[in-house]
């Protein structure tokens, strides 16, 4: 079976969520507190074959127990030749509870030529008693046509949570993956109760400590006799309650080490492997934070294995390694957003055309809530340096405010990328220079601002390099040129000064020497230096630009264009903080 649609109401941080799941591998990304894990917990509660589930008032949205928790999951695409599925869809079970599925969720009846689905709903009201049922159509009212579904029947759905809670799955406890793989566990209980009896029977009387206990027992026996109670034999023996060893005492061991003591990553891999064996692989795995405990190569291996298996996977991640492995077009990446009213929205990144390259190149950018779309590498480097300079002044660095930088790769791409990101729910800002009005027009800028983007743009005709040489105090120019060379892998100071002094445009300025400290201050010279730095790519790498701006930002006057615009951008980042 495949999860196709989810609706959640009043569960923990989620007031309302409606999600149409499109692919077989769905990875949810989004900033903290957008209820990614809550979605997985909801799916687990609604579908996995657990018979005991404890709810508290804090599981209700805003602790309001008068609003019923509803988790409704609609599934389709099952294999009706499988014996257990056929049994599930008998008249006496749920044959008459198959329903339809439309764009807005489950329908009471299958539409002509539409998919046939089955919808499972978990309801919890203020009695805190969870009730699972199969519903035809959207679960709107308590008294609509529904049929209870018990844990054993939910096992057919093949849903398991394979993450932090996976320790239990390494035992033969109730409804664990191992138990399901062993066909229900059979006579394990008999074996274990037999063992318990053996323990009770075994002779421990010769142990020193036990002999101490025996002395106490003897005293009590004689005391009892004095009180008129005649006891035949009083001795310390092991008293095993039958329940004290359940089937969950039986667990997988690697030599003498129980698997639960293994590392998180290893356990995750083994858990996933076991799950793939269930229902001949046609299962649904829920994995919170897929990357936990795994090195990048193991992450890639696990994703590859999961994708090539027959199962549906719903996972969350905070790792760019995971994001890079996913195919946007196949709806493998979903962006999760939650507004202040608790409405949670999940949207496939695939709605942004041709974004796969950006996802590979800037995976980090998509993991935050705010993205600054930078025109190129120089701008990204500039922002990173700015971040460090703010940090120096005890301000929170940009990344802690869930903001990332995205390299848009040219002024001509900024407009489309930025507006698509806004559509996805990201808060977006633009950092671009201003030397190519043919690539980004003033209208473009106005439209972006109207869509909610913050725009940080240099003065007219200025690329970032121009703005830097225009803004920096004249006395700092020699050191700036020097820093450019230090940061650059191959650039020599002499080459730089030579290039400037021999530029035909500075002929009339009588520079006479290659020593910049004696060059007279002039606007045309600043312009020439900016031109050369821009054309020859002196700072066109993130690390080049970062180094240069780390130096420059300390020297730029607070009233300079760069400082005021970056400060404004920073204010935007802080103001929008959730």
């Amino acid at each position, binding site marked *: 079976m495949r999860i196709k649609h989810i609706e959640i109401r009043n569960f923990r941080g989620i007031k309302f969520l409606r999600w149409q799941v499109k692919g077989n591998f769905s990875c949810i990304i989004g900033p903290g507190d957008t209820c990614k894990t809550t979605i997985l917990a909801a799916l687990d509660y609604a579908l996995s074959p657990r018979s005991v589930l404890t709810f508290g008032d804090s599981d209700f949205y805003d602790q309001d127990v008068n609003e019923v928790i509803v988790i409704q999951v609609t599934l389709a695409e099952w294999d*009706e030749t499988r014996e257990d599925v056929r049994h599930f869809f008998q008249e006496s079970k749920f044959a008459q509870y198959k329903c339809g599925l439309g764009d807005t969720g489950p329908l009471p*009846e299958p539409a002509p030529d539409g998919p046939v689905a089955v919808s499972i709903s978990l309801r919890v009201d203020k009695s805190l008693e969870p009730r699972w049922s199969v519903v035809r159509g959207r679960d709107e009212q308590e008294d609509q046509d529904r049929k209870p579904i018990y844990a054993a029947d939910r096992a057919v759905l093949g849903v398991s949570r394979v993450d932090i809670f996976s320790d239990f799955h390494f035992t033969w406890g109730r409804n664990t993956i191992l138990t399901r793989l062993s066909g229900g566990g059979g006579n394990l209980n008999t074996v274990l109760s037999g063992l318990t009896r053996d323990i009770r029977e075994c002779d421990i009387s010769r142990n020193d400590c036990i002999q101490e206990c025996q002395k106490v027992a003897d005293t009590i026996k004689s005391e009892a006799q004095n009180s008129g109670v005649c006891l035949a034999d009083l001795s310390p023996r092991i008293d095993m309650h039958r329940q004290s060893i359940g089937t969950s005492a039986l667990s997988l061991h690697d030599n003498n080490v129980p698997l639960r003591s293994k590392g998180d990553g290893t356990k995750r891999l083994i858990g996933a492997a076991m799950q793939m064996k269930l229902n001949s692989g046609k299962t649904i795995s829920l994995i919170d934070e897929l990357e936990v405990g795994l090195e990048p190569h193991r992450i890639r291996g696990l994703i590859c294995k999961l994708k090539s298996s027959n199962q549906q996977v719903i996972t969350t991640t905070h790792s760019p390694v995971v994001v890079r492995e996913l195919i946007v077009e196949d709806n493998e990446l979903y962006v999760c957003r939650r507004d202040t009213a608790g409405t949670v929205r999940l949207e496939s990144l695939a709605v942004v055309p041709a974004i796969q390259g950006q996802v590979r190149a800037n995976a980090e950018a998509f993991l935050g809530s705010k993205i600054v779309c930078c025109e190129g590498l120089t701008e990204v480097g500039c922002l990173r340096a700015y971040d460090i300079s703010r940090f120096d002044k005890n301000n929170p660095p940009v990344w802690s405010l869930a903001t990332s930088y995205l390299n848009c790769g040219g002024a001509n791409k900024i407009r489309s990328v930025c507006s698509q990101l806004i559509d996805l729910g990201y808060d977006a800002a633009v950092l671009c220079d201003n030397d190519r009005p043919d690539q980004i027009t003033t209208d473009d800028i106005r439209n972006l601002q109207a869509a909610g983007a913050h725009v940080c743009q240099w003065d007219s005709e200025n690329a970032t390099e121009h703005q830097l040489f225009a803004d920096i105090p004249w006395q700092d120019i020699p050191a700036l040129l020097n820093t450019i060379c230090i940061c650059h892998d191959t650039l020599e100071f002499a080459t730089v000064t030579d290039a400037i002094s021999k530029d035909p445009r500075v002929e009339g300025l009588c520079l006479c020497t290659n020593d910049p400290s004696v060059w007279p201050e002039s606007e045309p010279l600043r312009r020439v230096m900016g031109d050369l730095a821009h054309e020859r790519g002196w700072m066109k790498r993130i690390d080049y630009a970062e180094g240069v701006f780390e130096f420059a930002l300390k020297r730029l006057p607070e009233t300079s264009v760069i400082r005021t615009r970056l400060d404004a951008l920073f204010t935007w980042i802080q103001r929008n903080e959730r």
Partner: protein
Amino acid sequence: MLCLHGYSEMSDDVYRALARASSGFVESPAGCGKTEAIIRTVGDHCSGRQLVLTHTNAGVDALRERFIQHSVPTAKYHVGTIAGWAWGWVRKYPDNADYAGSTDIADWNDVYAAMSVLLQKDFVKLGVVNSYTGIIVDEYQDCTVAMHQLIVQLKSLLPCRILGDDLQGIFGFRADPLIDWSVVTREFANNLGVLQTPHRWLKGNNNEALGRWLLTARGKIRQKEEPNYEDSPIDRRTVSYADLGSRLIRLLHEKQGRTCVIGPKARPLPAGIETTLVKNNCRVLEPNELSALRSLILPLSGQSPTEKCKAACDFLFRSYGGLAGNDKAFIKKILYGEKQRPRHADKCLLCEKHTKGTTPEALLDLIKYIERMDGTSCKLSESVRALKCIAERHQETGTDLKALYADEIGKRKHHTRSSFYRCTGSTLLVKGLEFDHVIILRDADWQRKWGNHKDLYVALTRGCKTTTLVELAM
């Protein structure tokens, strides 16, 4: 005489054939172990779960009881009426079924066609195929054309075997005719055998000779002729109408055991005779939907005052025997809202209280009044009891009378028809029931007014100890 052992071996062959066949029919005269055949086939010879369908809730109860008696595990069968089974699907998927009627109260005329439409949908086919390994339909002679078409569709999905007796096909109405038996045998093609051990009459100290004679009588009945009663175990008497009451009572008191007086197919016995029977502890059988009550409730919740009054009078006079002419006149005047000045205090009170003609309150008070009178007897006790319940609930909750009636009938569905020591009913009502003694009360020109040869066969086969055929003298 064939020994029982030989019979049972023959029957076993039929059971095995039933279990193995993917399509086929078994013909079985009344009392020859049709139910037994179904129970044994399902219990001993079939694997998986069988869908066992029949026509009436009484039939379902009887089958279910026998399955339990024979300890057949419930995983091996599901018993239901064709109507109930089809309705279970149609009410869930009215859109897919192109069913336009209400999903609360079934529109029976459309349900079978709707189910046929549903059975073309893959998800419904799968649901049926997942649930059962075969289908067995009992009393197939009672299938209407629409039901037959539905079963034929099921036959393309699962092995489908049917049992029936064309001589007992007495249901069916002009608008909804029964399927012709020759069509049935052509469709199901394989004749899987004939059950012809008269089990009902071989048991205990029942009348074996009667059982055997009934088998031989089938030939004549099939040719729509009167069987030859000469040297038969049937006790035939001709009685004049004047003597009928006293003769019937004497007969009733002679019989030891459960006794039924069977009247004509489509109408009650003459009112006087019925009253006499009721006074002698004989219960009048009523159909499941309490048709007498139905013909009261529909006009009562309608608009026309005259129809209301007429329906109320008809109901009370039909339900109670022993009402004198002046009592009837008094009741009629109250129901029609006409003024009168009775002398009796009881009657005065009623007149003062009810001046608005026919109301549920007036009906309730009139029933109480009639029941206090000496010499009256309630003939339709089930309808009257249901009416009291409906009217009281209507007074308290204001719920629509029709809805209350539907609710009441819905509740009755799962009540097995109680077995009475003495009862009377039409051939339609006694079909499927079994008594020790049967007294058939037949008009002289019976083919015209009483019922046809199939009704006669059904009536003759209800008694396992004695059957008395009382014919009214011209």
